């Protein structure tokens, strides 16, 4: 049951009517739990549901145990100074550490097992009984997303940065919550749980806003992304047949396809959650307007970036042993070297792991190293860049310079996409060399550009869709579009809504030959 399937739309319509009819918070929580488990049951298979339940029990048991240990600290800390409290808390952390490590080992073990099974081409099990056969594995739907959120939740409780949920069914509802389990956003469970405890009743404005956002997501996915996929799937599976400007155009379209697909999915799920009065974290903030690689990753798949920052980067950088090492580098080689050392080592680890999160092949390791190197270089060379722009008298505040920075970042993203899009490093090499092998400029004029899966009419629809997305993104930088639209006369509002629905029905990719099962980020 993909988010863009008719089955999901029917499921969601029935679910929402039932949900909005519930008069009490606990009843709305119940509908979320049952609805999410039904969704998961039919989106995946029965066995992955069993694995999700197992993971939730491990997380619940460990978090509750740690919280109970910390109850003792709360009593003992009274009357102590901040420093004494820190010493006391360190003792309590030590007591709870074994429960944290055991839970992390178990839930990460399940994730690593499924990833390794796929990498080693083991047999994918269809039933729980088949899982116990030699070299069998299973991939529960959304395992990377709920595992990462669970790890974050456990660590936040261990660091006392989050409150433990003491009701198992609330935690299960949060973990299995259908808007975020398949493709994220990677939620902080404590934030979602806090909202679950005060789920509001029906609000016309909120439901309208949620449905509008879902509609916009469907537009991005079904009009733009799925249409571009008609051509990119052909090109990226046979990169040696293309060259020059052809590759350039299809790689740019591939980058837009990925953005429309993933951000479209986020619009659908964040909108769906909004209809229920739940605010999920944003995952995109107009990334193609970024002026640097680091800024790009603060705007693209934001919850993954924040997760790596909070649970990998900062713990490494703040580790007392690592700090000592950084201080000794600083003393021996100066402040600048110390700063670079403290930033580069944890960043390197983060980007190799980010690569492995996206895929276990060598291409993903290279992809991780590519982005890691870019961001480290940007950080290290920033002062020199500033000096050079001053020497060359380049005004970095002009629109022209900012536009140059945006185009540069977009092209860097396109190169990054080329590394993994064909599925192998050989494919990447073919594309990269093909780009300079011959220019093939004539494809722009002789119509042959339209022979690879996307005819001229469909190219025009894609072009219009991209323009519309771009326009909306520009407007979003300056204003809140839905709120502004909401203030317009009713005739204009409904003209816009019906216009988008009509556009979706006429130009959306669906029908009997359409495969609605493939959002690009739902395989993690």
């Amino acid at each position, binding site marked *: 049951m993909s988010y863009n399937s008719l089955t999901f739309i029917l499921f969601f319509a029935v679910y929402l009517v039932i949900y909005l009819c519930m008069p009490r918070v606990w009843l709305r929580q119940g509908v979320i739990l049952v609805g999410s488990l039904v969704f998961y049951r039919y989106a995946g298979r029965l066995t992955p549901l069993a694995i999700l339940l197992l993971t939730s029990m491990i997380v619940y048991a460990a978090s509750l145990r740690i919280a109970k240990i910390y109850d003792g600290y709360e009593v003992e800390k009274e009357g102590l100074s901040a420093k004494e409290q820190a010493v006391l*808390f360190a003792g309590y952390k030590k007591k709870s550490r074994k429960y944290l490590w055991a839970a992390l080992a178990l839930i990460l073990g399940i994730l690593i097992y499924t990833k390794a099974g796929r990498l080693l081409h083991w047999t994918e099990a269809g039933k729980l009984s088949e899982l116990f056969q030699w070299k069998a594995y299973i991939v529960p739907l959304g395992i990377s997303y709920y595992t990462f959120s669970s790890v974050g939740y456990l660590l936040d409780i261990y660091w006392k940065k989050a409150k433990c949920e003491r009701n198992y069914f609330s935690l299960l509802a949060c973990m299995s919550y259908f808007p975020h389990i398949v493709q994220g956003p990677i939620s902080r469970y404590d934030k979602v749980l806090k909202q679950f405890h005060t789920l509001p009743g029906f609000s016309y404005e909120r439901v309208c806003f949620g449905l509008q956002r879902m509609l916009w997501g469907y537009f991005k996915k079904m009009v733009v992304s799925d249409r571009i996929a008609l051509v990119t799937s052909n090109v990226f599976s046979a990169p040696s047949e293309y060259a020059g400007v052809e590759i350039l155009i299809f790689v740019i379209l591939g980058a837009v396809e990925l953005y429309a697909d993933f951000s479209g999915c986020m619009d659908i799920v964040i909108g769906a959650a909004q209809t229920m009065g739940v605010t999920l974290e944003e995952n995109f903030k107009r990334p193609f307007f970024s002026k640097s690689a*680091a800024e790009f990753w603060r705007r693209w798949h934001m919850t993954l970036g924040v997760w790596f920052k909070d649970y990998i980067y*900062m713990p490494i*950088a703040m580790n007392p042993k690592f*700090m000592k090492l950084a201080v000794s580098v*600083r*003393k021996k080689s100066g402040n600048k070297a110390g700063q670079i050392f403290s*930033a580069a080592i944890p960043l390197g680890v983060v980007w190799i792991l980010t690569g492995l999160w996206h895929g276990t092949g060598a291409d993903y390791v290279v992809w991780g190293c590519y982005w890691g190197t870019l961001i480290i270089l940007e950080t290290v060379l920033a*002062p020199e860049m500033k000096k050079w722009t001053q020497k060359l008298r380049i005004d970095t505040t002009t629109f022209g310079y900012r536009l140059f920075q945006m185009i540069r970042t977009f092209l860097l993203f396109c190169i990054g996409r080329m590394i993994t899009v064909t599925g192998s490093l050989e494919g990447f090499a073919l594309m990269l060399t093909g780009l300079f092998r011959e220019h093939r400029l004539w494809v722009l004029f002789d119509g042959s550009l339209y022979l690879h899966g996307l005819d001229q009419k469909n190219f025009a629809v894609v072009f219009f869709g991209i323009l519309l997305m771009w326009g909306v993104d520009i407007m979003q930088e300056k204003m809140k579009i839905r709120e502004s639209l909401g203030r317009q006369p009713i005739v204009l509002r409904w003209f816009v809504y019906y216009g988008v629905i009509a556009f979706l029905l006429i130009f959306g990719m669906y029908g009997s030959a359409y495969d609605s099962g493939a959002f690009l980020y739902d395989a993690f």
Partner: protein
Amino acid sequence: MREKVKKVLEENYPEIDFESSTELVDDGILDSLTMVGIISALSMEFGVVLPYEDIIPENFNSIDAMVELIQKFS
């Protein structure tokens, strides 16, 4: 103490105006890379070990917040 903290910050990050905001982290003036550098510099200067659970934006949003944090653990 405040002047000493300010001096350390300005020596390490002369390009940042630390007095310009009381929401340094929330306003995006300090990113995680800078925060790591600041923590490392302050730890070295004042000989304090800041526990990870106290590395939260609120404690780095202004010079005063950083001073308070160091005083808490020194």
